[in-house]
Structures are given as structure tokens and as C-alpha cells.
């Protein structure tokens, strides 16, 4: 039994509307409590330090077949960053796709305690869970690629939402997933024969259904299942110049589905979906248009997918996108990995350079979006690790957000055409600690539907991060480097009531972290009869019985049971 008292810190807890107030935070076991016995408790003197809830990352590719193939094909990436074994931590390698243990350690060092995995193909879900088990110190969840699952396509073509909901509930349950992920709806199936869809109304070959119908259908399914998170959407035409129009079309197409003003979809790594101009030469930022729309609507949340100028590895289930990236030329390695009946995938190592007009403008677009969208509860901070840059660049991204000076310092080094096109010089907004806490913790936890995460109220999980930032004496916008250093190595990271990192070093690696997954119970369970099993046999090369992820694959299970309304 552990009791910890964090005394006199400046607490930033947007969910409970606490903004840099001097308070004590009491922890008993793995929960935040009203108070603890000061004599028994371990006291952390946090005077002059900022106390926040543990970070919650809404979109990061940390595990799964795709990620691991990325690891396998990039030894040159690991050579740069070997991690020695210590008496506490395991050895590994880092950089753009760190090994599993290193992933856990480095997130914890930055004060992150929960990370949600970008996407996995259901058929390879066991692999992802095996990797998640090897990522210590973090609570994890994973999104399941559902958008091009044949059963979904077939039922949506018939417009049978209820049956589709039952099947999706079975799918999420049996892959131990957290939410519905839709990647380039319809495009992945088209990629099976080397094609793609180019607008939200392009029909999917062989399946009489359009991306619009897939997205709308799955939002309806998501609502019927009462899932904690909205659908997690990677839009069509990602990474194609002029695609901001597709993104706007997508957002407009989903407008009427939100009845109570709550979000119905989370569009992820929106920076890649915010390109204006008809080709790469005329490449421009579409951030203003998207921001204008977002400021007027509430049915969508976004995350940035910020580019951070590093040698990284792009990986996505969007196979056709990676192929078009490969076609642009200059890429030595290209991996394509189709998954029968449900998905595709691709990997390309990519170096974002400041002196590339396109890359530099991409950098600008991400920041423009985050700054032009007024409400921080609508857009969250990610780099779409490792697509825009590895997650250890988060402190850099934060610095660009809270300091105009930091932005100017980087913009100065960017390609001149990007400098000319960038809207950043006209933006004076500098985020406060309060807003940063929303974009990295409170907002993401709310969007994910996690009531016990992202805040420090009584009853919340005892996931706490303490940073060496004194809001009374440190002007983060001016001294952005000091604050950036503080965000890079938390003074304390507490996971489940145990101090796991101190001064940016791991002191305990034995906290495994839980795997959070959803069991949306429908009124009639999904009927898997002989006919269905026969279909399974025809659709997949593995048997129905061998498809689901058993409990064996979830080391520490945290099941969210939900009553569905279908």
C-alpha cells in the first residue's frame, strides 16, 4: 500500500477548472484521494513545480505488425540510438521506431502515462497485444481497422446498421480493441487491385458502397454501441495536394449526425489532410479553411500530426497513400502489406527537411491548425508518431505552440517559399499551460471517454506528472528552451501511485500498465451460425475459432463494459 502526497505544487487541471493553483495532491494506492495521512505518506515537495495529470496520447503507432515491420527494415535508424541495459531497465534501441521497452521508458520520462495505438488490422491483433504487453509503464488501448472489413462493407451496402453494429461489437470484443478506426474508407479495399478512391462519393469497386456511406454508417454504429470514443478517422486522399476539400466534404457529410452538439468523429493527423493547391508546386496551406469550419462546428475533434523535421518512418494502413509517396521518388525503401479482407498498409522512411518547401510548409500547417482553432478541446497535440516525427519531439511541438519566439526561430531556418506561404507570422497566439494541459491530457482523455484519466480530481487514476516549471517566475513564451527541457524530462512521473520516473530517469520499470479495451454488449449477441462460419472460412485464411484474441494476450486487462442500444 502506497500513499504519496505531492505538496505545494502549481496544479494545472483543466477538467476541474484549476489553473496553476497551489494545492496538494494526495494519492492512495492507484487513485487520487481527498487526503492521506501525512505522517505515513511519502511526501513529494513540489513547491515551484507544475503538477499535471499523466499525459494521454490519443494517436501514436507504438505496436503491431506495421510498426514492427518498420523496426525490422530500419537497422540504420537504430544504430543512431542504442539504449544500454541497466539494473532497472531493459536494453533496446530508439529513434524513429523505438523497441517496446524503450517506448515505455521514454514516454514515462516525458510524463506520459497512457497511449493509444494508431491502428491495427484485426487479423494481426494478437501481435499488437503481444507488443503492448512488452511496453511497460503505460496504459494502452488500440484502435481496430474496421472501415474496410468485408462484413462492414457488405452490411453497409445493404444499409443494415443494426447487424453491422452487432458484428462490429463482436470485432472490437474479439480483438480487444478500444475503438473503431477508419482509414481511407473504401480506399484500402480498392488497393487490393491497385486502385484507390478519390472522393467521398467514389464507389468502392465490387462493393456498391461509397466512403461517405462507410463513414456515416460506422458513426451510426458507433452511436448504437455507445462506444466511449468516437470513430477515429483517417480521411480519404490523405497526403494529396488539394485534399483540404475532401476533409471539408467529410466534415460536412457528418454534420447532421451530431444531435447533441457532441463530437461524432475524430479526424486524426489532420495536418496531412489540410493541403491546398492543385499540385506539389502550387502547394499551399488549407489550415485557415479547416480552422474556420472547426471554429463554427462542434461535431469533430482533431489531432495535429505535427511534422518535426527529423529522419523518421512513415507508416499507415493507407497502402495507396504510401505507394503514391513512393512514386514521388527518392525513396529507397517501400513496404506494402495488404491484409486480406480487412486492410492494407505501407511504410516509407522519410526525412522531413526544413529546406524542402513542402515539408517546411507541412510543419507550418500543423501549427497553424492548432493555433487558429480557438478551442483547445477540439484539437490535440500529436506527431502521429512516427509519421510526423518520433514522440520524443513532443516538447519541441509544445514549445512551438506556447512560444511565438520558438516558432520564429524555426521558421527563420525554413525554406523561403514556405516562409512566404506560412501563416505563422500573422498568428500571435501563445498557448498557456492550461491550454497545453488540455491538448495533451484533459482534452484527449475526454475525447477518448476516459473519466478517470487526464485530471487530478478525487477518484481519478493516480497518474501524475510533475514538471520543473514555476508559472510564477518562468515566462514559458520567452524562455521556451527551459520549459521545453522541463517537458522533456518530468521531475516525477507517477503511474498507478508508483513513482516510475524521477528527473527524467526511470526508477521503476516493473509497472506493466493496463490494456484498456471495450466490450460493447448488444442486446442480441452477434449470431455466429454455421453460415457465418462458412463465410469466415471463405473470407479469411484462418478459421473463425482462431481469429479472436484470447485473454492470454492481455497481460493486465482493463475491460470497459458498455451496454449498447441495439
Amino acid at each position, binding site marked *: 500500500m502506497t500513499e504519496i502526497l505531492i505538496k505545494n505544487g502549481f496544479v494545472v487541471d483543466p477538467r476541474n477548472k484549476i489553473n496553476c493553483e497551489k494545492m496538494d495532491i494526495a494519492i492512495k494506492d492507484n487513485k487520487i484521494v481527498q487526503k492521506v495521512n501525512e505522517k505515513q505518506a*511519502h511526501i513529494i515537495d513540489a513547491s515551484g513545480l507544475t503538477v499535471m495529470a499523466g499525459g494521454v496520447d490519443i494517436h501514436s503507432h507504438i*505496436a503491431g*505488425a506495421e*510498426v*514492427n*515491420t518498420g*523496426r*525490422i*527494415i530500419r*537497422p540504420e535508424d*537504430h*544504430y543512431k540510438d*542504442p*539504449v544500454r*541495459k*541497466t*539494473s*532497472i531497465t*531493459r*536494453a*533496446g*534501441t530508439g529513434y524513429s*521506431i523505438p*523497441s517496446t521497452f524503450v517506448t515505455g521508458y521514454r514516454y514515462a520520462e516525458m510524463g506520459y502515462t497512457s497511449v493509444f495505438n494508431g491502428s491495427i488490422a484485426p*487479423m*494481426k491483433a*494478437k*501481435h499488437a497485444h*503481444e*507488443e503492448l504487453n512488452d511496453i511497460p509503464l503505460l496504459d494502452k488501448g488500440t484502435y481496430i481497422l474496421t472501415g474496410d472489413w468485408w462484413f462492414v462493407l457488405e452490411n453497409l451496402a445493404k444499409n443494415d446498421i443494426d447487424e453491422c453494429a452487432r458484428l462490429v461489437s463482436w470485432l472490437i470484443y474479439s480483438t480487444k480493441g478500444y475503438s473503431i478506426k477508419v482509414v481511407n474508407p473504401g480506399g484500402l479495399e480498392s488497393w*487490393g*487491385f*491497385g486502385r484507390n478512391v478519390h472522393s467521398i462519393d467514389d464507389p468502392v469497386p*465490387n462493393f456498391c458502397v461509397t466512403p461517405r456511406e462507410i463513414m456515416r454508417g460506422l458513426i451510426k454504429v458507433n452511436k448504437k454501441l455507445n462506444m466511449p470514443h468516437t470513430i477515429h478517422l483517417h480521411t480519404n486522399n490523405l497526403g494529396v495536394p488539394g485534399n483540404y476539400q475532401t476533409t471539408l466534404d467529410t466534415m460536412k457529410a457528418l454534420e447532421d449526425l451530431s444531435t447533441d452538439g457532441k463530437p461524432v468523429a475524430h479526424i486524426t493527423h489532420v495536418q496531412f489532410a489540410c493541403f491546398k493547391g492543385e499540385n506539389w508546386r502550387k502547394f499551399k496551406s488549407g489550415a485557415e479553411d479547416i480552422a474556420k469550419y472547426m471554429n463554427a462546428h462542434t461535431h469533430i475533434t482533431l489531432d495535429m500530426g505535427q511534422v518535426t523535421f527529423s529522419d523518421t518512418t512513415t507508416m499507415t494502413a493507407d497502402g495507396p497513400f504510401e505507394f503514391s509517396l*513512393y512514386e514521388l521518388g527518392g525513396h*529507397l*525503401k*517501400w*513496404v*506494402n*502489406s*495488404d491484409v*486480406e*479482407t480487412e486492410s492494407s498498409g505501407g511504410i*516509407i522512411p522519410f526525412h522531413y527537411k526544413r529546406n524542402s518547401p513542402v515539408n517546411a510548409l507541412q510543419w507550418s500547417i500543423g501549427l497553424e491548425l492548432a493555433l487558429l482553432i480557438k478551442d483547445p478541446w477540439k484539437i490535440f497535440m500529436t506527431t502521429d508518431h512516427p509519421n510526423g516525427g518520433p514522440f520524443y519531439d513532443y516538447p519541441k511541438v509544445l514549445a512551438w505552440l506556447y512560444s511565438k519566439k520558438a516558432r520564429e526561430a524555426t521558421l527563420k531556418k525554413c525554406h523561403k517559399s514556405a516562409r512566404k506561404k506560412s501563416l505563422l507570422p500573422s498568428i500571435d497566439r501563445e498557448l498557456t499551460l492550461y491550454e497545453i494541459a488540455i491538448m495533451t491530457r484533459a482534452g484527449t482523455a475526454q475525447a477518448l471517454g476516459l473519466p478517470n484519466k487526464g485530471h487530478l480530481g478525487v477518484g481519478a487514476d493516480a497518474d501524475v506528472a510533475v514538471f520543473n516549471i514555476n508559472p510564477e517566475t518562468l515566462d514559458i513564451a520567452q524562455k521556451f528552451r527551459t520549459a521545453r527541457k522541463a517537458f522533456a524530462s518530468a521531475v516525477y512521473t507517477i503511474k498507478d501511485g*508508483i*513513482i516510475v520516473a524521477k528527473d527524467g*530517469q526511470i*526508477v*521503476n520499470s*516493473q509497472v506493466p500498465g493496463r490494456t484498456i479495451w471495450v466490450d460493447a454488449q448488444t442486446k442480441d449477441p452477434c449470431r455466429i451460425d454455421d453460415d457465418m462460419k462458412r463465410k469466415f472460412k*471463405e473470407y*479469411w*485464411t*484462418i*478459421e473463425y*475459432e*482462431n481469429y479472436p484474441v*484470447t485473454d*492470454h494476450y492481455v497481460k493486465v486487462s482493463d475491460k470497459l463494459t458498455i451496454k449498447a442500444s441495439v
Partner: protein
Amino acid sequence: MNKTINNVVCPICGCLCDDLEVTVENNEIIKMKNGCAVCEAKMVHGYKSDERILKPLIRKDGKLVPVSMDEAIKKAAQILTDAKYPLLFGWSSTVSEAQRIGVELAEELGSALDNCCSVCHGPSVMATQEIGIPAATLGQIRHRADLIVYWACNPWASHPRHVERYTAFTDGRFEGSEWKNYMQRLRADSGRKKMEMASKRIARVEPPIKPQVCFTGPPPQMLERKSGRKVIVVDVRKTMTAEAADYFLQIEPNRDYEVIEALRCLVLDQELDVDKVGGIPIDTLRDVADAMMSCGFGVIYFGLGMTQSLGRFRNIEIAIALARDLNRKTKFVISPMRGHFNVTGANNVFAWQTGYPFAIDFSQGYPQFNPGENTAVDLLRRGDNDATLIISADPGAHFPSVIMQNMMKHPLITINPDMNAISRLGDVVFPAQWCGIEYSGTAYRMDTVPLTLKKVVEAPPGILTDEELLTRILKEVRAIKVKRGEPVGQGEVKLAHPDKVKAPQACKAPAKPKRAKKGKGAA
């Protein structure tokens, strides 16, 4: 008394067929349905043969003597910790749960860690590291592929159900099975053969030797017009797989690179000034190139004939480059025919824990990767390591003897369920349970699809699983190291009070003779 277990996963080759029906009576498998001949040999006979090791053995005065499990574990741990630079090799026929412990053990020992991949598809992995790979899961082939190329592999012998379950002879959503056509051809063929035999008997004349390029199916010009799936086999010798193909190219040994390069040229519309490449006339290659370009979804499966021939990973690299070029014209994928049932898993487990798929060296306290230096055969060849642990593999039957002779100079620990060639040579010989028969676990199919192996019978008493055995060895190794006052890994760390923890202590690299590092990377 007997019960039937359905959908059992076959723990033999990279196909991991998961539709076996196994009948068990009195804790013994008596019948198996759906599997191939190799599967039957293992599941019904092999696993319970007299070759099974039932007790740990230690070699004393040249003879293997049964000992207790504790003694064997102590002895093994002693050998491993005494050694300056042990080699842990194998891992391809065990479950990924055990492979994970294996990485931890290697890390604790500061040893070399390699898996069977380095003598089968290691070059394929290296080629992937050079230029990536456009791949697909097997079902994608079943549903969509209308052109299947088997290059330098013989699935009929090494992956007996590959054709039937995943490629030419299976019914997919968009492509049908070629089984009927094949049967018709076979009947016509056998008629022809009977005629030949008869004429031979009458005239006593040998039938003429067939030319190098054999057209088992329709003549080349008809390849394009043939409907349904087409199968092309390229190999240095005609095999049973080639017999079933529409088109067979017999190329000269070690000439894969040239032939593929020529195909690439043809695909990219370049003229070739030679008549023949690798023994194949250019016109024939043009037919193949046309078939590749005009298909809707094509696939190349390649085997050890490529990875073990001259050129090694460069052969694979050029084949992947061909598949990439073809993607500009149509959809094309390429995949290795991985051999053991979980060699793909070994690559994956090693990669997610260390960043590297094989050929890993922990001597510096962090993982290093350099195939050609840290690969098992090279280590043994130079005689760098001074103890060896072999788990679930049989280098006794699959390493050249010259290499094995170097291994035998130092203590050898083996973990295998049965008395295979390497166990016969071991100094400490552990028994193990059969994974996929006596205990369950995860294995990765050749296309990285994970499947759960099933437990169908109980293991003989006293025999541990690979995972348990490795965990106990690891524990013993740590105990010995603690006794010697050396820092050990996290397993032993107890936190008294969170704030009193000292900064983590870096584990020093064990004293190991410094070796000159060669150039980095595979290339």
C-alpha cells in the same frame, strides 16, 4: 473415450494450416485429418516416438547420463555464466512467449543471439532492409491473384498445402481454383505417358530428353490467352511443383540475378542484346514479362533456392525491385516462403524487443546488429563464442559439418523435445514439451499473421515448456551473477522506498576479446 479437437494449428512449416482435426484417445493422438504427410508424421507418429527425451541428460565421460532437472539447470546456468561470449541460437520452432524470455536471457548474459533465419531467409530480411518489400497476407493471394510465380522454391515438398490452401488451387472471392484444369491436364498427361511407355516397350527406344525449358501447360504463346489463374515456376530443376505449373523455366544454377534483371529490363521496355539469359531464351522471358504485366494481381513466392545461391540477398533485392516496378503497371506483391512455423515470430519478437530481427550481439550491453559478423555461422566459423545454447532447432542436421566442428570445441546446451542430431551431440541435453501439441502459444505465419497453437495432449510428467525452462535458467544465471557481485537485470530489483532508489547502474559489458568491427550494415 476419444475426443476430436477441431481447428488445431499445425506446428511445422510457415503455412500454419489451422484446420486440422485431431482425434485424441487416452492422451494420445490417434488420428489427424486435413493435414499433409509431414503433419501426419509429426502429429500422429513423431511426437511420441522412441526418440523422445524424457529426462535431462548430462554428458559425463563421453556418455549422456540422466540427471535431475535442478542439476541440469544449474549446470547449464554455470556453463552460460562462465562463458565469456555464449551464443544462443535456434528459436524458430518454439512459441513467441519463449522467444521473449530468450532475448532477456541473452541480454543478461551479454551473449550473441541469432535465429534459424540466418541460414534460411536471413538474406530475405537483409534485402527487405535494403529496399523494403511489397507484400500481402496469403488470403489476399487466394482472393485476388491471377498470376502466381514460385521462384526457386518447391512448395510441394516444403510447404505441402501452400498451393491448395492459399494460391492456385483455392477458391477466392474474385479468382477461382485451378484444380479442375490441373486434373484434366494430369489425365491427358498420364495418357501420354502410358503411350510413351508402351512405345518404349515395343520399340525399345528411349524417349528423347526434354529441352531445358519445359512447357508443361499450354505453349508459351497461349499463356496470355489462358483464362483463370496462371502458375509459373522457375527453378534449377524440375520439381513436382513445376509439374503442376502452366509454365516452367529451368534456369542454370546461381543465375537467378541475371534472369530477374533481364525480366526487369523487359518490364521497363528495354532491349536486350543477348539471346539467352541464364539458359533461357529472351523470347521466353518476354512471354513471362508480358504475363506479369498483364495480370490483375500477381505474386512472386521465393524460396531458399534464391537465398542460398550465389548473390544471396542481392537476388532477393532484385526480385523485390522487379515486383516494385510491376506495381507501376498492375498490382504485384512478393513474399518469402518462410520455413519453420515460427521463424517469422522469432524475427518479430527479436525486433520488437531489440529493434533487430536476427544476428544480435549484446556484448556491449545494448543490442547490435551486423549480419555477417553476428550471425551464428560466422561466429562459429571464426570461433568467437565459447559456449552454445541451442533451442528448438537442429543445426546438427542443418549446419555444415565444418561449422559444427567449431561448435563442438566448447560446451553445448540443447533444448529440444526429441533426440535430434544436435541433442545427440549436447553436453547438457534438456527435454522439452512439444509446442502446439503439449502446450499452447503464439506462432507467426509466413505472412506475419499470428495464430495460437493449441494444446491437444498432456506432456509426459516432469518435462517443462521452453518458456518455463528458460525462465528457470535465467533465474539461476541471475543468482550466480548476484553471488559474484555482478549487477543483474530488473528481475531482481526490489524497491524499498521510491525515493531511496539510486540512479540505475549501467551493466558493464563482460570482458570479451575486442573484435575489429567491419563496416556497418549489410550493404
